[in-house]
């Protein structure tokens, strides 16, 4: 019973004391909604409901009764508020002490309380029954103490209506000061009153005289008749005859009315039956109603009806009811089965599932439908995942050229996350430098990537509902209040077991997800036995790093969404592991791809040299690496809860090796380029960058690259690599938290230096050898003999030729790279000077003129290339000079000076290149 209102509370009583039958006004709160609502009222333990008059919700008037307790509460009970309380109390006074004619400190009602029980509205004034002053004389109240009187007349009373009336007491009390005359008068009064009373009854008889006579006549007629019957004595006694007559009369009456009565009985019974039908219409119509409502889907109504029927007729003894109730039960049983089937049906929404579970629990279905539903849901998710995989594998096998139709599965439940994901992914792809291919790429999403996306989408769309279902299952919100009590015990018993089971389920789903992704992307990481179940991807080619990064993004988002569901971390650990593996895989693959790309970079060499002496190759190489690192940025970043990719030493080592190999591949490329045969070089597209502020640009009009030039270009690139690119790359590696950068730099620098050295030596060999080789024949041309020669007139042609050759080398180098000039020239000069000193030392003897000639030529050469002298070449020159005999005279010295100056002035134009170089060198 629901209590719509507060219980009654009595807060006031007026008056607060009194004798029985005192009229009291009770005030308070919630004293009922109407006279009918008031169902109980006790004062001092006495039930006063009979006399209670309900006035309002805050006021009741009644009369106190004859209670045992002399002080007690006023308790009001109402239908709407139940049993109430009171804050005030009533004190019941002893009625004996306050007689009808006594003076009382409290109010005594003058109504006839004796008649109150039967009809309180028809009170007869007490005075008409008991005159207050029976003696008819003035009453003078004595000041006689009541107590004394009580002691004087024990067991007596002054009340003349009571049995133990004591006239003396009455007189003392009321007429103690009355004179004798007066009392005499009172006696006559009393007599008169007594007379009046007897006269009264006589008068009554007089008034109804005719009636008396009629009665008298009737009685005498009966008497006569009886007398007559008695004299005849027909049969038996008079009374017997009378009895017979009465019986006959009764029989006749019976036969007369039998038909009517029978009809009435029948009608009554029919009416009764109809009544019953009407009254229990609910039950009789219930099976049909249930059927209809089930068809309409109004399960709530059905459940309500069923509950009602159950409470009304569940324990009925009536056969008809039993039969119908059984019918209802079978229908309900059918409904339960139907609901269970619907519940276990997949796919369905969480809302529907919750609804069905509630219905089932309301219907007191056996077992644990919610748990069954969880199980079914779990199986369904697993099945979905597998079928998704199968679909993609089939698709891949069947029509590799066609788009997967499953890609267009943009159903309404597609979570926002994925929309966002595809957006960012396409953005990312758009920013890559293969943007031209982007459009086609988008539609050519690899099957496995599409599969992973679909799979994660699937898990993300199903798992939250699954999880929520479980949460509701655990906190009991699946069950309605009534059903909960019945299911409570069973469920709480199982709850621990269930928790473990559910944990296993989630883990199974997670593992399945992870294994399927692994099967698709990392086939080596799943055990042999699971390959058939999870793998089956007959794909030879590896996914590109970008797609892997995309997949990682997808899986990460999945992980985030799952964490947002507040699924415990330990259940998601497998996903975390997968992400780490994928990341490592992605890094490896990307680096491998980069290596491939670098390898192809050699083909892209266009041999266009900028004014720094560089081609675009080092730049492209750097870009290539930076780009691949950029694409790894997201992968390398550690999301919350993720470990670093380089956590494991093995991975670290691997990545380091891959980086080194990238570097080495590039170096190898350079080497290949430098040694490539001429024929291979496609020079058709070569042109000079006219816009470049190259000083020598015009000279190279019909530029065609020789192998020496290529060598030089590569050499200059090497220098740049060493000085800039490798450092930049190391920086980039650092930025992306690569480990073992020092090692990478060290190893690559070393191999670069080696290459550089090799190339340089090659070049020097190529250039210095002809010059050096031409010295000896040049010196001795025209059968020149040091011992027998004319006084020198100037520097001989061979030296000039050698100088011109050196200048040519200088020019060649300068066009490629100014920076290489000193390095190359000093080496060339070294070789030349060495050869010269060797030649001088080989000369057995010099004539005076010969010595002068030799000295002149050596000095001329030395002064000319002074800028590029190294300690080695200096010592060579010194040795060469030491091999000559000393100058004998000042005239010789003078001549030497003169001739040198002459040489310098005549060769001025040719020699400026060395100065120019030095000045540019100074500048740079």
């Amino acid at each position, binding site marked *: 019973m629901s209590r719509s209102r507060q*219980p009654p509370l009595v*807060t*006031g*009583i*007026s*008056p*607060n*004391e*009194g004798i029985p039958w005192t009229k009291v006004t009770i*005030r308070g709160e919630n004293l009922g909604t109407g006279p009918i609502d008031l169902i109980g009222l006790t004062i001092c333990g006495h039930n006063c409901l009979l006399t209670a008059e309900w006035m309002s919700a*805050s006021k009741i008037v009644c009369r106190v009764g004859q209670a045992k307790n002399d002080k007690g509460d006023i308790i009001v009970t109402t239908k709407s508020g139940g*049993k*109430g*309380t009171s*804050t*005030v*109390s009533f004190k019941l006074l002893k009625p004996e002490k306050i007689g009808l004619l006594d003076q009382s*400190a*409290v*109010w005594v009602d003058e109504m006839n309380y004796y008649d109150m029980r039967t009809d309180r509205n028809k009170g007869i004034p007490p005075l008409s029954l008991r005159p207050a002053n029976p003696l008819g004389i003035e009453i003078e109240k004595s000041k006689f103490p009541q107590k004394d009187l009580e002691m004087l007349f024990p067991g007596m009373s002054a009340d003349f209506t009571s049995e133990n009336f004591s006239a003396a007491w009455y007189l003392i009390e009321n007429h103690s000061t009355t004179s004798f005359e007066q009392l005499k008068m009172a006696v006559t009064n009393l007599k008169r009153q007594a007379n009046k009373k007897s006269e009264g009854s006589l008068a009554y008889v007089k008034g109804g005289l005719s009636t008396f006579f009629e009665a008298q006549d009737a009685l005498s007629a009966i008497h006569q008749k009886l007398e007559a019957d008695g004299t005849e004595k027909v049969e038996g006694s008079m009374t017997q005859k009378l009895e017979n007559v009465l019986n006959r009369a009764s029989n006749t009456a019976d036969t007369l009315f039998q038909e009517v009565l029978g009809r009435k009985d029948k009608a009554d019974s029919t009416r009764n039956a109809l009544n019953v039908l009407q009254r229990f219409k609910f039950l009789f119509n219930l099976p049909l109603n249930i059927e209809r409502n089930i068809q309409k889907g109004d399960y709530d109504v059905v459940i309500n009806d069923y509950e009602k029927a159950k409470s009304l007729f569940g324990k009925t003894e009536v056969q008809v009811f039993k039969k119908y109730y059984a019918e209802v039960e079978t229908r309900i049983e059918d409904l339960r089965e139907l609901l269970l089937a619907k519940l276990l049906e997949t796919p369905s929404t969480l809302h529907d599932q919750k609804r069905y579970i509630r219905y089932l629990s309301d219907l007191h279905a056996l077992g644990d439908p919610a748990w069954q539903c969880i199980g079914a849901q779990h199986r369904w998710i697993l099945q979905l995942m597998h079928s998704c995989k199968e679909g993609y594998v089939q698709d891949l096998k069947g029509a590799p050229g066609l788009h997967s139709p499953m890609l267009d599965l943009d159903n309404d439940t597609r979570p926002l996350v994925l929309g966002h994901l595809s957006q960012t992914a396409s953005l990312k792809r758009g920013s890559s430098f293969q943007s031209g291919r982007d459009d086609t790429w988008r539609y050519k999403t690899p099957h496995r990537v599409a599969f992973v996306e679909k799979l994660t989408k699937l898990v993300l769309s199903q798992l939250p509902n699954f999880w929520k279902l479980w949460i509701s299952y655990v906190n009991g919100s699946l069950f309605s209040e009534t059903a909960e009590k019945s299911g409570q015990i069973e469920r709480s018993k199982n709850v621990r077991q269930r928790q473990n089971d559910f944990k296993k389920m989630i883990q199974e789903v997670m593992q399945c997800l992870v294994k399927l992704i692994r099967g698709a992307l990392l086939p080596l990481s799943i055990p042999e036995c699971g390959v058939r179940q999870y793998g089956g991807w007959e794909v030879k080619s590896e996914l590109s790093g970008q797609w892997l990064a995309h997949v990682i993004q997808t899986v990460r988002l999945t992980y985030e969404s799952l964490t947002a569901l507040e699924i415990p971390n330990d259940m998601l650990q497998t996903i975390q592991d997968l992400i780490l593996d994928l990341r490592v895989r992605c890094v490896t693959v990307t680096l491998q791809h980069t290596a491939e790309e670098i390898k192809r970079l050699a083909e892209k060499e266009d041999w266009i040299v900028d004014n720094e002496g560089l081609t675009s190759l080092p730049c492209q190489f750097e870009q290539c690496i930076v780009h691949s690192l950029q694409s790894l940025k997201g992968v390398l970043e550690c999301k919350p809860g993720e470990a670093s990719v380089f956590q494991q030493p093995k991975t670290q080592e691997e990545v380091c090796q891959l980086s080194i190999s990238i570097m080495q591949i590039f170096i190898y490329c350079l080497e290949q380029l430098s040694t490539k045969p001429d024929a291979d070089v496609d020079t058709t597209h070569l042109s000079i960058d006219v816009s470049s502020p190259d000083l020598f640009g015009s000279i190279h009009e019909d530029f065609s690259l020789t192998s020496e030039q290529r060598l030089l270009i590569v050499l200059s690139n090497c220098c740049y690599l060493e000085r800039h690119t490798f450092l930049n790359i190391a920086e980039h590696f650092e930025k992306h938290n690569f480990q073992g950068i020092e090692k990478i730099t060290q190893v690559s620098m070393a191999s670069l230096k080696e290459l550089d050295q090799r190339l340089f030596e090659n070049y020097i060999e190529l250039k210095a050898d002809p010059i050096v080789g031409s010295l000896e024949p040049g010196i001795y041309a025209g059968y020149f003999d040091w011992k027998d020669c004319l006084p020198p007139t100037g520097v001989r042609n061979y030296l000039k030729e050698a100088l011109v050759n050196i200048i040519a080398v200088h020019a060649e180098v300068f066009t490629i790279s100014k920076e290489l000039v000193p390095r190359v020239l000093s080496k060339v000069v070294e070789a030349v000077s060495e050869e010269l000193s060797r030649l001088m030392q080989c000369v057995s003897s010099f004539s005076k003129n010969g010595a002068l000639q030799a000295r002149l030529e050596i000095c001329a050469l030395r002064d000319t290339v002074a800028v590029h002298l190294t300690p080695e070449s200096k010592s060579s020159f010194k040795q060469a000079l030491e091999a000559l005999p000393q100058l004998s005279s000042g005239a010789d010295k003078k001549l030497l000076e003169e001739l040198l100056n002459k040489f310098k002035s005549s060769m001025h134009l040719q020699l400026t290149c060395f100065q120019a170089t030095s000045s540019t060198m100074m500048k740079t």
Partner: protein
Amino acid sequence: MAANKSKSQSSLALHKVIMVGSGGVGKSALTLQFMYDEFVEDYEPTKADSYRKKVVLDGEEVQIDILDTAGQEDYAAIRDNYFRSGEGFLLVFSITEHESFTATAEFREQILRVKAEEDKIPLLVVGNKSDLEERRQVPIEEARSKAEEWGVQYVETSAKTRANVDKFATCLISVAVDSRSIWKMYEYIKDGTNDVMLWKFLRVCAISVSLKL
């Protein structure tokens, strides 16, 4: 449930206030207006009525027990008993009847006589029927000066229009929570070192002071 409730009720502080005054001045009307916001038109002489109301005083619930006594002289003999049980007294008179005002002095005398052992008896003089201004017989200044003479407050109310009944209620409560009970509490606190009690006491002091000022 009911048992719990009554238990909690009985544990609340209880203050007994007695309505005193000549017959027909409106003691019962005032009481009923205070208790139930109800004005009773018909006159029915009171014998002795009990009312109890819970009021929230500074966040704490206290119970005020109002004894509405008979004003008629017939009951003069039993007044002593009532007065003995009272803690605070409301001397009610009707402003349309000067006799009822002079009677308050007699009532006060009687109270003081009965409660002779107490040094200070919380009193409040109430002039009722203020809605019948045209029939006023007791000038407000007279009533006020009398109240001042006695060192008590004077309130003019109308049970019919409910004028000043709220003020009356406040004064009633202030009378109920009289200085005597505060001193009682102080004595109690002085012995123990109950901080909470001391705090409560100070609060009650503050309230009663603010009410009386």
